[in-house]
């Protein structure tokens, strides 16, 4: 069984489970929208123009709530389930790739819907032709967050309180993703180049991809 075929099967099942459980759509997304609404209502309009902070609030909410989506699968996986997958011969790298892909798909959908609510609630100042750039940034940021969360789930796998530990691992390491994603539109607004920020996101994704594939098997063996 090839790595690619195993990764595809892992991703397929993760997405099937998500469709049936519906955590992203039924739980995380509504709470994230409520968080956006609270920000929009609680910000004093006399001091701050909502449009100025809309995109920053979007990325803050998207990353914090997105982490819960991406960490959910690893956190809910039992030790026995991991053992069964291991005995069946599932390559840990395939699990990393498949799980990251499934998480990235969920995050892209989540961030896109959240973006719509952000535009409605905050009416942010957006440069011309912002949408294609924003969608590209969402793809790159969602991929990075998904891989980082999957990797953190592997590091914390088999440990007690792994959900909390995984979140602690992700929070500081997600900084390059947040900086790259939030600064892209800001640079467009100021008529500055965005290449640097796009390259930061791509580089972060490539580093995470390499680390995830390279570390997945040692991490699995270390948990024994």
């Amino acid at each position: 069984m090839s790595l690619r075929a195993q990764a595809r099967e892992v991703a397929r099942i993760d997405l099937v489970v998500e469709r049936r459980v519906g955590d992203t759509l039924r739980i995380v997304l509504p709470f994230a929208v409520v968080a956006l609404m609270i920000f929009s209502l609680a910000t004093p309009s006399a001091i701050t123009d909502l449009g100025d902070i809309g995109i920053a609030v979007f990325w803050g909410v998207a990353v914090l709530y997105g982490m819960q989506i991406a960490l959910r699968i690893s956190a809910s996986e039992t030790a026995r389930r991991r053992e069964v997958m291991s005995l069946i011969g599932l390559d840990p790298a395939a699990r990393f790739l498949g799980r990251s892909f499934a998480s990235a798909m969920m995050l892209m959908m989540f961030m896109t819907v959240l973006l719509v609510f952000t535009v409605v609630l905050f009416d942010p100042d957006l440069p011309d032709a912002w949408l294609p750039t924003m969608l590209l940034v969402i793809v790159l940021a969602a991929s990075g967050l998904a891989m980082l969360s999957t990797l953190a789930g592997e590091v914390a796998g088999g440990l007690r309180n792994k959900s909390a530990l995984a979140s602690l691992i992700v929070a500081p390491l997600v900084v390059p993703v947040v900086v790259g994603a939030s600064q892209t539109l800001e640079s467009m607004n100021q008529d500055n180049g965005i290449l640097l920020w796009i390259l930061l996101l791509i580089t972060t994704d490539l580093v995470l991809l390499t680390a995830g594939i390279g570390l997945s098997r040692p991490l699995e063996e270390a948990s024994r």
Partner: protein
Amino acid sequence: MTSLIELDSVGVTIGNNPILDAIDLVVAPGDSVAVIGPNGSGKTTLLRVIATLLRPTSGRVVVMGTDTSEDMGANRGQGNGFITHEPGLLAELTLEENLVHFSRLSGEDPSAVAQALYAVGLENVASRRVSDASFGMKRRAEIAWQLIAKPRLVLLDEARSGLDEGARSLIDSLTVLTVSRGGAVVSVSHELPSQGDEWPQTVLELSNGRLIPR
């Protein structure tokens, strides 16, 4: 004949607690071995070492010709079936979907799933989600997976506990099938195999971390 399992002075210490101490065990193709011992005696730990899911603290473990101290994962996907008291099925999938998922991951033919489900008597509940299935159904599904994967080594951890007579006989059939095709079975339990179970050739007792003939 090359043995399937060789444990040489294997010890396992978890924290400060010695669980296994200088375990020696050789299991050849065609062997059926039962290990009995009270709760907490280290039976599951022993099986997890054999399944290459736990690295021993000391000693040498050779499973299906591979020294696991060199590569713990070398035998993964090559015929090591481990049935424990905790099923490893995904709760959100149906019984059939779980087996198809396993088949796809391991390179087995998913079309064999229907026949395996029929063989274990689950053909009428194949589309039931695992979250809605009884313990016995989950255990039967795990046996069905062993029928598809045809592992050379079957490890049974209290596999008969909580099962009805029909399911227990399936465990016996799996044992006979595995042994007859040159594989081996190691089962652990807190009690001696009862009359009617497929009687193992060798019965050992795990006591104070050591294996002794019974």
